[in-house]
């Protein structure tokens, strides 16, 4: 008995939920009990749910990451403009939470980018712009991919839900048809 289909057609190798075209035939084929089938469906359903939760978390992370990158890009645009106009800007920068200090930023060509893992690297404005734009593009692609995966997963979840209901109903029907003869 197979309730899971092939794992192609999506990036994560999620098995496809098989749509039960004919519940009657499916149940008769391996003389399975409804309980058994329902248990398997429930198992599959839970697996899909777990995957959905982890994908949703990934999406949430990206939702925070993307505006962050955009903000850094905005900042670089500002520095570029100041460089072009040879203009010094006054800024209040955060020293600690709710505490700001004033600093003058003269026109600059270099900017430090926090790469993570306690590493900061100096880039020229142009290079920083390039790097951040690339990161933004990747994040957006990743977001799109996650959305596609979620859609795919949602399909499987709905199919499994409908399968469960139909097998359940099939069993109710079967038991009712047995009643008169008992």
């Amino acid at each position: 008995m197979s309730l899971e289909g092939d794992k192609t057609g999506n990036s994560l190798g999620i098995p496809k939920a098989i749509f039960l075209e004919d519940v009657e035939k499916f149940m008769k084929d391996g003389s399975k009990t409804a309980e058994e089938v329902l248990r398997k469906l429930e198992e599959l359903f839970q697996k899909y749910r777990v995957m959905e939760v982890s994908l949703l978390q990934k999406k949430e992370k990206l939702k925070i990451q993307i505006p962050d990158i955009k903000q850094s890009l905005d900042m670089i645009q500002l520095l570029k403009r100041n460089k072009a106009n040879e203009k010094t800007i006054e800024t209040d920068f955060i020293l600690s939470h709710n505490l700001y200090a004033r600093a003058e930023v003269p026109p600059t060509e270099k900017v430090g980018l926090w790469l993570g893992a306690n590493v900061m690297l100096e880039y020229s404005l142009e290079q920083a712009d390039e790097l951040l734009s690339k990161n933004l593009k990747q994040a957006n692609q990743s977001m799109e991919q996650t959305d596609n995966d979620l859609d795919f997963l949602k399909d499987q979840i709905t199919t499994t839900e409908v399968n469960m209901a139909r097998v359940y109903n099939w069993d109710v029907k079967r038991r009712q048809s047995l009643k008169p003869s008992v």
Partner: protein
Amino acid sequence: MRYITTDGHQIKASKMSKKTQSIDEDVHICYEDQSKINKFAINNTKLHDFQDDLVEKNKELTNLNEAIDELVILDETEMIPFQYGEIFTHLSVEEANQELERSKKGIEDEINSLEDKVKSTKKVLSDLKTQLYAKFGNKINLEESD
């Protein structure tokens, strides 16, 4: 009888209550129907996502508009701390206004595209609804249940 819940929707896949024991009354669900139900579920989730985003963006737009209104009151020569991420830069009224207008334009574009998406998603949903109700009648429930 068993109900299926899909994001605030109850889809009664097939109906078998004690009163209706007749098998003939069951409508057969074919693969195409299943696809339609799936599509409905996905689009319904999307609609909610879009609508949530729209609320957020509209909030941002209101904030920007308020900021622009405030700027008008200020003396032209004044420097204003303007928030960029975690820091403030001091901008002239004119510069600050430009920055705000730029952000506003961006948000407005996003709102417009979201509104289009909401509209087209609603259209897809209502089309699917018509088709599914036509086939399953009262055996399927696609209405929002709070």
